[in-house]
C-alpha cells in the first residue's frame, strides 16, 4: 500500500526533553565496542575542551529514532513497520552532544516515494537545546520492502 503523500512537509511538536546522561553515553559506547576516552573518561573529554563526556557521533539516533516513531508508527501513514529496513542515514552536527545536554527533537517529513515496489520515507530530526541551539540534524530514510521486492 502506498504511503500517504500528504505527510510530506508535516512537522511534529518538539519531543519531551531528553537529558543526556554520562552512564548512557558510556553504555552506548560499550555497545558499539568503542573505548575512545572522550566517551568514558571525564578528564579526557575536558582535555579536548568539552564540558563533559562526548557522545559518539551516531548517538543522535537514540533521540531522532524515538522522535521519528511519531510519524512512522502513525497508522494513517500506512507504513508496515514489520517490513522496514534502514535505507540511509545522515547526520550534520553543529557541535557534539555532551553529557548534561537537555535536548528536544522536531521531526519533519522530508520525502515520500515508491521505488521498485518499496515504500520509502525520509524524515529529518532537528535536535536542539531548550534555548533553541541546533546541535544536530538527523536525516533517516526508511524502506518498507514490498512483498515482490528483491531483498
Amino acid at each position, binding site marked *: 500500500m502506498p504511503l500517504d503523500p500528504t505527510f510530506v512537509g508535516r512537522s511534529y511538536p518538539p519531543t519531551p526533553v531528553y537529558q543526556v546522561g554520562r552512564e548512557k553515553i558510556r553504555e552506548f559506547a560499550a555497545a558499539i*565496542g568503542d573505548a575512545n576516552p572522550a566517551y568514558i573518561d571525564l578528564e579526557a573529554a575536558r582535555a*579536548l575542551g568539552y564540558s563533559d563526556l562526548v557522545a559518539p*557521533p551516531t548517538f543522535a*539516533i537514540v533521540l531522532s529514532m524515538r522522535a521519528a516513531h511519531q510519524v512512522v508508527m502513525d497508522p494513517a501513514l500506512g507504513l508496515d513497520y514489520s517490513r522496514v529496513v534502514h535505507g*540511509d*542515514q545522515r547526520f550534520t552536527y553543529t557541535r557534539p552532544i555532551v553529557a548534561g545536554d537537555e535536548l528536544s527533537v522536531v521531526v519533519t517529513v522530508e520525502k515520500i516515494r515508491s521505488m521498485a515496489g518499496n515504500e520509502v520515507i525520509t524524515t529529518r530530526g532537528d535536535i536542539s537545546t531548550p534555548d533553541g541551539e541546533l546541535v544536530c540534524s538527523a536525516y533517516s530514510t526508511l524502506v518498507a*520492502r514490498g512483498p515482490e521486492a528483491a531483498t
Partner: protein
Amino acid sequence: MTTYVSYDEVEVGQSLPTRSFPLTRADLVRYAGASGDFNPIHWNARSATGAGLPDVIAHGMVTMAIAARVVTDWIGDPGAIVEYSVRFIRPVVVPDDGSGTAIEVEGVVAEKLDDGQVRLDLTARVAGEKILGMARATVRLS
C-alpha cells in the same frame, strides 16, 4: 578541539588505517538495549525470516557506528566530525554460530575543503562485499 591529525599535514589520497571489527549476536542484543531499537529482525530469526530476510541482520546503525571508528580513532577527537552519512546497501547477516561476522573498514582522504575541513570516504565490507554506499565523513582538523 584538538585532533591528532592537522589539516596542513593531510593529503588527498592518504589512507586511514584499515580495521576489522567483529560483530556477534550478543553485540546486536547489547546495541538494541543501548539504542532502544528493539526491532526483532535484529535479534530474532523467526522475525527476520518472516520479513523475508535470510537470517538476523545487524542494525544498520551498528554498522554506521563501527565504520565511524576508523575516523574517530584517526582524528582522536570524536567531536570534530561535522557531517557523517551512509547508505545501507546490503544487509549484514549475523549468524548464530558463536563467532558472528566481521566488518572490514577502510578510509581515504577524498577532499580538502575550506575552513580546516576534510572529507573522508569510507568503504565497509563483509566477506569482500560492500555493505555501505556513499559512506562519507566531514571532519574539522586542527
